[in-house]
């Protein structure tokens, strides 16, 4: 392939977009719409997952230390706790802090005087790397010398875990379904676009154009349209996401969405890649039919 031919493919592909303005418009519109629907859904799923993760990470296992141990000995149990694999952090929570917290809640100062910090054990608040293994970790903690009791917030953790599972399954199923539907719609749009060019392709073949010569301008055209759709979808997605977060969610709920600034790169990458793949493979596959025999 020489330089002239390459240039020809690009200029022809570029011109094709305008010559077949209607089908170009339809293709970009459909691909953009499909990307936006899938993108919006994925962003919702990502946000739910992030919220669940945050709640998981702030949930704790409370370890009560044996009251017969001295303060120093009680504190040193922390070293053992930190050695357990799934422990992210063990926070020392001495009985004085527990007492202070308790006193704050009491409203009757008389009642308060009848208590001393001694009624509370020393504690460690343990945060986990992965809450999925909370039970196992709790067992490991119980087995440590100097540990009197371990309290796991079982109900909360279990419901968080099941939310996570449901969100994961639902989003995978949904995105796959959307993907199939999108591919189907896109295929039909591209078919429409190629149908418009059937005549042209037939004429090119009559004058002895090789398959590559016929195919490449269309592939370039598909490539450009795909990238255009990806970019367009990206900007619309950014706009819609920020609007949704600022104008809709913020005034009525305390929910804080992940800022688009943290998400833009994967969104852009996925959109451009999908646009590219759909554009190029869409045109290669549909053109193949007209080039056969």
């Amino acid at each position, binding site marked *: 392939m020489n330089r002239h031919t390459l240039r020809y493919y690009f200029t022809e592909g570029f011109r094709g977009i305008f010559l077949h303005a209607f089908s170009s418009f339809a293709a970009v519109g459909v691909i953009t719409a499909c990307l936006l629907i899938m993108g919006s859904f994925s962003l919702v799923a990502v946000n739910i997952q992030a919220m669940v993760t945050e709640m998981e990470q702030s949930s704790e296992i409370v370890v009560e230390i044996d009251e017969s141990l001295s303060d120093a000995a009680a504190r040193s149990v922390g070293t053992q706790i930190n050695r357990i694999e799934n422990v992210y952090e063990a926070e020392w929570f001495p009985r004085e802090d527990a007492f202070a917290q308790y006193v704050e809640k009491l409203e009757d100062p008389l009642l308060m005087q009848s208590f001393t910090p001694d009624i509370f054990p020393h504690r460690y608040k343990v945060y986990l790397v992965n809450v999925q293994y909370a039970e196992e970790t709790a067992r490991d903690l119980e087995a440590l010398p100097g540990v009197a009791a371990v309290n796991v917030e079982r109900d909360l953790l279990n419901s968080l875990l099941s939310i996570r599972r449901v969100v994961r399954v639902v989003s995978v199923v949904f995105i796959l379904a959307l993907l199939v539907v999108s591919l189907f719609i896109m295929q039909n749009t591209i078919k429409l676009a190629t149908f418009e060019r059937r*005549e042209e392709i037939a004429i090119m073949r009559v*004058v*002895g154009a090789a398959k590559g010569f016929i195919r490449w301008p269309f592939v370039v055209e598909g490539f450009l349209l795909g990238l255009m759709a990806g970019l367009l979808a990206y900007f619309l997605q950014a706009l819609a996401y920020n609007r949704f977060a600022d104008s809709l969610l913020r005034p009525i709920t305390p929910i804080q969405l992940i800022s688009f600034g943290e998400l833009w790169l994967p969104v852009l990458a996925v959109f451009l890649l999908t646009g590219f793949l759909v554009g190029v493979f869409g045109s290669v596959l549909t053109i193949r039919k007209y080039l056969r025999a």
Partner: protein
Amino acid sequence: MIDVYKAYDNGTKALKGVTLRIDDGEFVFLVGPSGSGKSTIIKLLTSEIRPSEGKVMVNGYNINTIRPNAVPLLRRTLGVIFQDFRLIEKKNVFENVAFAMRAVGAAPKDVKKRVPYVLDLVGLSHKARRRPYELSGGEQQRVAIARALINNPMVIIADEPTGNLDPARSLEIMTLLERINALGTTVLAVTHERELVNRFAKRVVAIDGGRIIHDGQGGYYTNDPRRAGARE
């Protein structure tokens, strides 16, 4: 082509033992009633279809065994013209002719030189920027001829090139083909029009029902009034 039979997939037997030889530099009219197999012969020559039986050789290519990627190469040795012109509506006259040259990998500067030359040959230099729909039928056909000529083919094959034109335009087109033939290119022209065939003293091959019924120089229809009726 030697003893060629062609049956289409649906069982229609379009050719039943056709033997035909056309030499370099000849001008041949192929005549016959509609459905007699004329277009089938052309499709065999351009390797659009393959013979069911018999052998077809075109410009050194064996159509029976030609590889798919050699088909474009064969077609570059042929210039094909159709009744319905087959121009790309979205390209102008210059581009319609130029792209056939780009298709064989020609450099842009050669294209810029050769296209005006060929357009001049068919008398359309002044309409190079027009789009097909702005041209008359005769002009569109001349664009198609220019496109057929652009790569210096050995043979021009025209399937009813005048079928959509009035008699005066038809004569113009045939005269143009004759001039091209005089420059050394072989021409095979399919036609229905008796007048036209009789005006040129050329070899006439007549086909009916998939068989050749006449092959000789000039004036086929005037020689035998009985056969003349066979054409419609």
